[in-house]
C-alpha cells in the first residue's frame, strides 16, 4: 500500500499512562518496531485493526510538547510533521489518576487544531480511589470525545475504536512553524487555570491518596528504611538472576551438547561436521545460554517499573550516583549490566541527558557481567585456596566479591573522571532529576509479558546475529590451516588463531601471559565465556566433555604451568577487558558513532592492560 495514502493518527500521552497497552489493543499484532532515523528512540507503528487505511503511531511518552528530552523532542517533531509525514489526528491518552497535569497536556494538544479523541485511561485505579467524573460534561467542555478506558479491557478499547472511526480522515494538517511558535508562547499558568475551571464543573468527588499508598511512599523513599528495602529487592533480583536461571541454563547447555552429539552421529566426520558442531551449534548455544538470565532480569525490571517502584529506587540512589556525575536514572541500566552489558546498553535509552547516557554506556561494560563468571571460577578455583577466613567467610567467595567490588568501584571512578574532564572542557551541565514518581499500582501482566518478549527478541536478534557470525569466523580462524602431518601439538597451534596468538604474545609478555593464553583470548573476543573452552582446546585437555569437565582438567594446569602471578594477572585482565563483540556492536548502534565506540573499547583495553600489568608485577615480587 502506498504510505502517503494512509491516514496517520498519533498516540500521545505521558510516560507510564498505559499508552502502549492501548496501542497494542488498537493495532492488534501487526505493529512494527524500529528506530527513528539518527536517534535510538523507539518508533512503534501499526495499522488500525478496524481500518487498514489508518496507521497508528505510538509516540514516546511526553508531558508536554515543550520538550526537554530527546524522547520528547521526537514526539513533538513527529506531531509537527518534521519526519516527513503529516499527522491527521491525535489520540490523547490521559492518566485519570493525575487529571490536572494530563488535562493541561490535552489543552496544549488541542491548540494544534487537529482532530482528537481523549482516552481517559487508568480510570479503574482513579475510581477505586474515589474519583467520580462527568465524562459527558468533560467531553463537552473540551470539545472532543472523551472515553473512560481501562486499556486492558475490551469494552474501553471498543469505545476508542469507534471514536477513531468517526474522526475525519485526511485533515488539513498543521503548519509546523506556526505550531512551534504557538507552543513557545504557551502560558502554563493560564492553561492550569482553564484546567481548574473544567475540573470544577466535571469532578463530582475528588480522588484521595489512599493511606497505604502514603505509608508505602514514606517507606520506599525513606533515607534509611527505603535503602534497606531496596537492598532486599536487589538481593532478590540477583538471587533470581543467578540461581533461578541455573536449571534452565543447564538444560540449554545439555540440549546443545546432545544436539551436537546427535549431529555427530548423523554426519560423516569432516570439515562440514566440524563447522556445524563447533562453529554453529557451539556459537548459537553460547548466546542462548544467557537468555534465562536476561529474561529473569528484565521480568523483574518490568515488574518494578510497571508497579511504580523504579523511580523511587532512582530517587534513593541519586545522591550516591550524583557524586560520579550521574543521576538516579542510570541505576536501571547499570543494574542490568550485572547480567549482560548488551541489554544494559540498550536500556540506557531511558536516560534523557545525552552526556549522562554516553557515560552510562561507557561504564556499563566494566560491571561484572555473568559471562565473566566461568573465567573467574576457573582462576579462583586454581589459585585461591579454599579456606575459611575470620570464621565465617570463604576466601574464594571473598575474592569473587572483591572482583565485583573492583568493577563497581572502577565504574564509579571512571564516571567521576569523565565528569571532571567534561567540567574542564566546560560541557558539563547538571542533570536535573525532575522526575515523576508515579502512583503505585498492580502491574499489568499481559503488558509485562509482551514487553518481555520484545526485549528478549531484541537480545536474540542483536546479540545473536553478531555472536553467530563471529563464532563462524572464529571457528574458521581456529580450524584453518590444519595441522601438518605428524604434528605434535594441538591443531589450534598451527591455525590462524595460533599465529595471531603468537603474534600478540609479546604485547602481553609484560603481563605474564603465555602464548596459549593469547590464543585462547582470540575466540574469547566473541564472548568471554568461550575463553575457558578455548583454553581447554589449546591445552588439549580433551575437548569433548562438559564445561565443568574442561574446567576441572584445567585447574591443575593453571596452578602448575601459569603460576599465581600470571593467573592473577589474567583475572585482572578480565575485570576490564572489552573482549565482547556483541557489546561493542550494540554500543556502536546506540551511540551511533564509530569514534566514540573505539574510544570506549580503547579505554577499557588500556585499563585492562595497566591493571593486569600492575597485578602481575606486584605479585611476582610476592609469590
Amino acid at each position: 500500500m502506498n504510505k502517503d495514502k494512509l491516514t496517520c493518527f498519533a498516540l500521545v500521552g505521558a510516560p507510564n499512562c498505559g499508552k502502549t497497552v492501548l496501542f497494542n489493543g488498537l493495532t492488534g499484532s501487526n505493529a512494527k518496531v524500529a528506530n527513528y532515523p539518527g536517534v535510538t528512540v523507539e518508533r512503534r507503528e501499526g495499522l488500525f485493526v478496524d481500518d487498514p487505511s489508518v496507521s497508528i503511531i505510538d509516540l514516546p511518552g511526553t508531558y508536554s510538547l515543550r520538550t526537554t528530552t530527546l524522547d520528547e523532542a521526537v514526539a513533538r517533531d513527529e506531531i509537527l510533521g518534521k519526519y516527513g509525514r503529516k499527522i491527521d489526528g491525535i489520540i490523547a491518552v490521559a492518566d485519570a489518576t493525575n487529571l490536572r497535569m494530563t488535562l493541561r497536556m490535552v489543552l496544549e494538544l488541542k491548540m494544534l487544531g487537529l482532530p482528537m479523541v481523549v482516552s481517559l485511561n487508568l480510570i479503574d485505579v482513579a475510581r477505586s480511589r474515589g474519583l467520580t467524573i462527568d465524562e459527558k460534561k468533560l467531553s463537552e467542555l473540551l470539545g472532543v470525545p472523551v472515553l473512560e478506558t481501562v486499556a486492558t479491557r475490551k469494552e474501553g478499547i471498543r469505545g476508542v475504536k469507534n471514536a477513531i472511526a468517526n474522526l475525519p480522515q485526511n485533515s488539513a494538517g498543521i503548519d509546523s512553524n506556526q505550531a512551534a511558535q504557538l507552543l513557545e508562547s504557551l502560558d502554563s499558568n493560564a492553561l492550569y487555570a482553564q484546567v481548574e475551571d473544567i475540573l470544577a464543573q466535571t469532578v463530582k468527588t475528588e480522588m484521595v491518596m489512599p493511606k497505604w499508598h502514603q505509608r508505602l511512599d514514606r517507606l520506599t523513599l525513606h533515607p534509611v528504611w527505603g535503602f534497606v528495602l531496596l537492598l532486599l529487592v536487589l538481593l532478590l533480583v540477583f538471587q533470581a538472576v543467578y540461581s533461578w536461571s541455573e536449571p534452565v541454563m543447564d538444560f540449554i547447555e545439555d540440549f546443545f551438547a546432545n544436539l551436537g552429539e546427535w549431529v555427530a552421529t548423523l554426519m560423516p566426520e569432516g570439515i562440514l561436521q566440524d563447522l556445524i558442531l563447533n562453529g554453529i551449534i557451539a556459537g548459537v548455544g553460547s548466546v542462548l545460554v544467557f537468555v534465562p538470565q536476561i529474561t529473569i532480569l528484565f521480568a523483574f525490571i518490568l515488574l518494578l517499573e510497571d508497579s511504580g517502584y523504579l523511580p523511587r529506587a532512582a530517587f534513593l540512589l541519586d545522591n550516591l550516583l550524583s557524586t560520579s556525575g550521574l543521576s538516579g536514572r542510570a541505576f536501571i541500566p547499570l543494574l542490568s549490566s550485572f547480567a549482560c552489558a548488551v541489554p544494559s546498553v540498550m536500556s540506557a535509552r531511558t536516560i534523557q541527558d545525552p552526556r549522562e547516557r554516553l557515560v552510562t554506556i561507557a561504564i556499563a561494560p566494566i560491571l561484572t557481567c555473568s559471562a565473566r563468571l566461568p573465567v573467574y571460577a576457573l582462576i579462583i578455583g586454581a589459585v585461591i585456596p579454599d579456606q575459611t577466613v575470620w570464621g565465617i567467610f570463604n576466601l574464594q567467595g571473598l575474592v569473587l566479591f572483591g572482583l565485583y567490588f573492583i568493577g563497581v568501584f572502577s565504574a564509579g571512578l571512571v564516571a567521576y573522571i569523565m565528569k571532571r574532564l567534561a567540567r574542564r572542557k566546560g560541557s558539563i551541565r547538571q542533570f536535573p532529576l525532575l522526575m515523576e514518581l508515579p502512583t503505585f499500582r498492580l502491574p499489568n501482566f499481559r503488558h509485562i509479558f509482551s514487553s518481555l518478549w520484545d526485549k528478549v527478541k531484541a537480545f536474540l536478534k542483536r546479540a545473536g546475529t553478531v555472536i553467530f557470525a563471529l563464532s563462524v569466523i572464529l571457528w574458521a580462524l581456529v580450524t584453518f590451516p590444519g595441522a601438518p602431518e605428524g604434528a605434535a601439538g594441538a591443531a589450534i597451534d598451527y591455525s590462524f588463531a595460533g599465529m595471531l596468538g603468537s603474534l600478540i604474545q609479546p604485547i602481553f609478555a609484560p603481563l605474564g601471559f603465555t602464548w596459549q593464553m593469547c590464543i585462547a583470548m582470540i575466540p574469547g573476543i566473541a564472548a568471554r565465556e568461550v575463553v575457558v573452552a578455548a583454553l581447554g582446546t589449546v591445552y588439549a585437555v580433551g575437548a569433548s566433555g562438559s564445561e565443568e569437565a574442561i574446567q576441572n582438567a584445567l585447574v591443575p594446569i593453571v596452578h602448575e604451568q601459569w603460576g599465581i602471578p600470571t593467573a592473577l594477572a589474567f583475572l585482572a585482565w578480565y575485570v576490564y577487558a572489552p573482549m565482547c563483540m556483541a557489546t561493542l556492536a550494540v554500543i556502536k548502534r546506540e551511540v551511533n558513532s564509530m569514534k566514540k565506540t573505539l574510544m570506549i573499547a580503547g579505554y577499557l583495553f588500556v585499563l585492562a592492560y595497566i591493571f593486569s600489568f600492575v597485578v602481575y608485577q606486584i605479585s611476582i615480587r610476592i609469590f
Partner: protein
Amino acid sequence: MVVPLSKLTKGNVAYIDSIVANQAFGELDTLVGRRLADLGFSKGVPVEVVAAGVFGKGPFAVRLSNLSQFSLRAAEASKILCHINK
C-alpha cells in the same frame, strides 16, 4: 513567610508562591523553570515534602495537591519559593 522548597520541613503543607531563577542551571534556567510550570508547580498550589535525602539535603520527593509526585534535586527545589502559611 516565603522560603525555598528545599527549606520546608517534611510533612508540612506549604503553598507555592513563585518560581525564581537559579544561577546553577546557567542558560538552561528558563527551560527548567518552564518545565516546572508545565508539570504543575504553579502559584497557590499546595505542596508537601514527602521525603528528603540524608540530612535533608535532597533530593526531595514532593507531592502537589493534585496528588502528582515528583523528585527534585536541591538546585531545582531552591527555584520554587513557597509560603509556609496560606
